[in-house]
């Protein structure tokens, strides 16, 4: 049972993290190559708070808020730049985050933070908390997708110049997506830190940013269920199949490449095609 609990907890955290990027990249069409930095900000922030003796719920909330606030600042900077620049700016934010954390002794520097206090919950209870949050984020994503905000996001992902011609304040919507996505990544980070109870800079590096992007892309950009499935599978695959772990990155790279090259709408796109609805409504469909 303990093994299943570990797997499900890891899956749930991956699902929250992947759905958080899905808000930015999937719904709003903005590529972030530094999303793990916000996961890391949430993790470090939450860990520092429980290490200073404050309660776990407060730590989660603080990780959520701090990641979201830094996300807004980064968003304000990057959303001024042209579409293709965002990928590079966010990648830069990822490296900047690592560079800063590595040099800070109070954050454990290169060696990382160990001895993060327990959440106070038993393992099954912690798993239940993670799964409840994952379910809530799923519900929120599904609601958002059907709301007018999701509608506007579709248009921004499709053609932001034309969206402006319809009176849409594109920068504010992108910022909203960024704020929500980075805050939720921070929440996932806080959960991660208290699940593993040890964090170091390498847990939030470029590889993690690519991993989460792979989950969103393989699942099908913008498809909530596709992303959940991809996050669940890709997060536990290396745990299940030990021999994969040496080839994990090769697999992710190959997945990113193959999916983009042959089925840019991911698994959701393939399912839609199989159902005969080849005219997918995902923004990646046609341009």
């Amino acid at each position, binding site marked *: 049972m303990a093994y299943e609990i570990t797997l499900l907890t890891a899956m749930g955290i991956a699902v929250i993290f992947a759905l958080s990027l899905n808000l930015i990249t999937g719904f709003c069409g903005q590529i972030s190559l530094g999303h793990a930095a916000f996961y890391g900000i949430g993790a470090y922030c939450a860990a520092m708070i429980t290490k200073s003796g404050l309660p776990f719920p407060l730590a989660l909330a603080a990780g959520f808020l701090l990641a979201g606030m830094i996300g807004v600042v980064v968003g304000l900077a990057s959303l001024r730049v042209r579409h293709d620049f965002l990928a590079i700016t966010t990648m830069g934010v990822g490296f900047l985050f690592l560079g800063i954390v590595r040099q800070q002794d109070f954050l454990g520097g290169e060696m990382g933070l160990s001895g993060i206090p327990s959440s106070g919950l038993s393992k099954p209870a912690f798993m239940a908390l993670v799964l409840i949050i994952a379910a809530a984020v799923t519900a929120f994503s599904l609601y958002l997708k059907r709301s007018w*905000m999701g509608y506007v996001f579709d248009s921004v992902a*499709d053609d932001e110049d034309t969206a402006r011609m319809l009176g849409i*304040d594109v920068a*504010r919507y992108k910022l909203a997506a960024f704020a929500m996505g980075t805050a939720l990544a921070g929440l996932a980070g806080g959960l991660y830190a208290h699940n593993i109870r040890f964090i170091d800079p390498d847990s939030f590096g470029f590889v993690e940013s690519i991993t989460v992007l792979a989950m969103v892309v393989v699942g099908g950009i913008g498809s909530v269920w596709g992303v959940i499935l991809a996050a669940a599978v890709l997060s536990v695959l290396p745990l299940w199949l030990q021999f994969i772990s040496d080839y994990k990155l090769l697999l992710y790279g190959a997945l990113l490449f193959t999916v983009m090259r042959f089925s840019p709408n991911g698994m959701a796109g393939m399912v839609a095609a199989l159902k005969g609805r080849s005219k997918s409504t995902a923004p990646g469909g046609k341009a």
Partner: protein
Amino acid sequence: MTALLSVKGVTVRFGGVTALEDAGFDLQPGGLLGLLGPNGAGKTTMMRSITGVVAPQAGEVTLEGRVITKLPTHQRVRLGLGLSQQIVRPFRSMSVIDNVTLAAGHAKTLSPLAALGHRHRDAERERARELLQRVGIDEMADSEPSSLPLGMLKRLEVARALALDPKLLLLDEPLAGLNHMEAGRLADTIVALNQDGLSIILIEHNLSEVLRICQRLVVLDNGRNLAAGDPRTVMDDPAVQAAYLGSVAEREEAVHA
């Protein structure tokens, strides 16, 4: 009566090239104004200065007496500009009616928070269907834009602009690329909209349709005002004939070549 839109002394330079120099015009409420000029005269730059895609080095654009020169495009749209672009740009990931419905929901898309708080779109869909009917493509409501011919996409652009409930409709070459019959039909739609009280600025190369439907013309040449007035007077102006008609002759030669 104050002008609905007033453009004064607008100058736009790109690098060393002057696209517009001290150009301007007024549009009275309810007017249907044709903006003419040979290729390169600055018509599209004028349109872009009004919509805010281009920032003029000098001059002022006012809408209902309010200076909008410094506002970004989306805010100008919120103040009452409806735009139909020269090159059609539907959202290709959405059906035809979804394109129009999004525009019809302009009250709900004003801020992200408002947009997050609303889900129902039946009223906007209804309104979108009316507008598609108005421009004559309601049968295509559920089609994908990619599958439609240019003539219908031009109508979709107009319907989408109308869905914003604009005070002023800016149409940049809505008739370009349409055959004679399609152009005539869309021109009739434009006249009907104007008769319902909508103010319209029309940039157009199709001289015969412009002369047929517009009450007032403004002619640009080399980025400057060349002439303005009612169609007959303007077209009889020797300067206009020299600048514009000469260029039309060249264009037609080019087409036949």
